């Protein structure tokens, strides 16, 4: 799908690592736990999703394991700089 660039503002690895964090769409989640299971530093990503919170854990590496492995597209990266993006 050739999508408009507006949907592609969060894909650069460098941008994510420096200014990004993992956010969730909890209505897609069934608490299967693949995210928590694969987190290299043991963050309980699933618990954040249950509470509809971003993964605001100070040790999150934004390595993307959870984002890539979620079978249901629950997780994605977003920029933390709220001024860079219009709030929804």
């Amino acid at each position, binding site marked *: 799908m*050739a999508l*408009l660039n507006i*949907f592609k503002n969060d894909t650069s690895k460098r941008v994510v690592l420096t200014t990004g964090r993992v956010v969730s769409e909890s*209505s*897609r989640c*069934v*608490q299967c*736990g693949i995210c928590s299971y694969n987190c290299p530093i043991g963050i309980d990503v699933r618990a954040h999703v249950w509470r509809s919170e971003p993964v605001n854990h100070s040790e999150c590496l934004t390595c993307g394991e959870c984002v890539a492995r979620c079978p249901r*597209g629950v997780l994605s990266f977003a920029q933390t700089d709220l001024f860079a993006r219009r709030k929804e």
Partner: protein
Amino acid sequence: MRYVIIGAGVAGISAVEAIRSVDTVGEIIMISDDPHGYYSRPGLAYFLTGELHDKALFPRTKEHYKRLNFNYLRGRVTRILRSDHALLIDGKSRLVYDKLLLAIGARATPLDVPGAKLEGVVKLDHLEDAKNILKQAKRGKTAVVVGGGITALELTEGLLARGMKVHYLLRGDRYWSNVLDKHESEVVENRLEEEGVTLHHHSELKEVIGRHGRVSGVVLQDERALKCDMLAYAVGIRPCLELIQETNLAKDRGILVNEHMQTTDPNIYAAGDVAQVFDPLTGKSVLDSLWNPAHEQGQVAGLNMAGRKTAYLKSAPFNVTRLAGLTTTIIGVVGHGKDDDMIGIARGDSETWRQLPEAIVAQSGFDVNHMRLLISEKNLVGAILMGDQTLSRPLQKMIAAKADISPIRDLLMQPNAPLADLIAQFWMSWRATLAL
């Protein structure tokens, strides 16, 4: 005040959390006959494929439970004695309640053919079922899968991942025909075949054949025979209604509840897969067998039980799943009619998906990224996205809000219209008008 919750699924746990958010002192007792308590039932599919360890299926730690401050009883509730406000557990001990929640879920519809009780005939409801399957799934052996919808595919993929040869029997001419269109069924079937699954269309199971009490093969209605070591079935699910047989609580296909999740007895509530919920918007009572509605209904039931009057507003039916490795989102109304491979309602399914109003289908994309939109006169009424999920959230919002898409309707209907771009562009302008 004593709250009693039967069932340790997502509806039950959500209810406990909701009650505690309102009432910090009332006594809460949860009872379940599942030896494993609360775990992610949809996650069982990923446990089967080996993507997850079974220990990872449990979303809660002991500390979580401690903080919620409730008692957990392992046992089977065998009767509800309404006039005494009491339950019988395992036929003997009595437990009195002030407010009761039935969050007892649904179970696989049993297979109704000779030989269905043989060892090696398996289903996937609970963690014990998944463990049983894994114990029997031997590399190089053969399995036959019957049924439709998501669970049958999950069984197929799980057995395949464990090195079994899999034959998948479909009664009709294609997979999940009442939700997917022909092309989408083909996408799924082609991918299954690429993974090595042997599909048999127009094939209906007649009998399971056994040797020494174990499955050794199946015979089909047209007398064809297949040798196999396992038969896995997923032919639909049924809300667990046995418990309320003698109670006179109103029921239809599920336990009937109003928008406050209250049954016809004001002290008894029901939520989740077992509840058939009144939807004030359509005036109908509907069954869902989806994780998120069960979560929301459990919350609403808990709040009401604790005295905070709250109505459950059914959102547009919505499910995300993985079909033959493709993340797939199904929003709103996308299918119609009856599926030959399912009895009643499919798992991960909502009846609303088949209540098709006048709608026209626009379509784009190829195998891995596919989008289908269902459009009525002025609105989007449904969508299926396979593969790329970028537009899933915008579509979900616009379908739920019944956004007026008149400005792009004609464009969407043109042959080979760039659907994704049109939708993305429209979403941006629609969202901007909301922000004003």
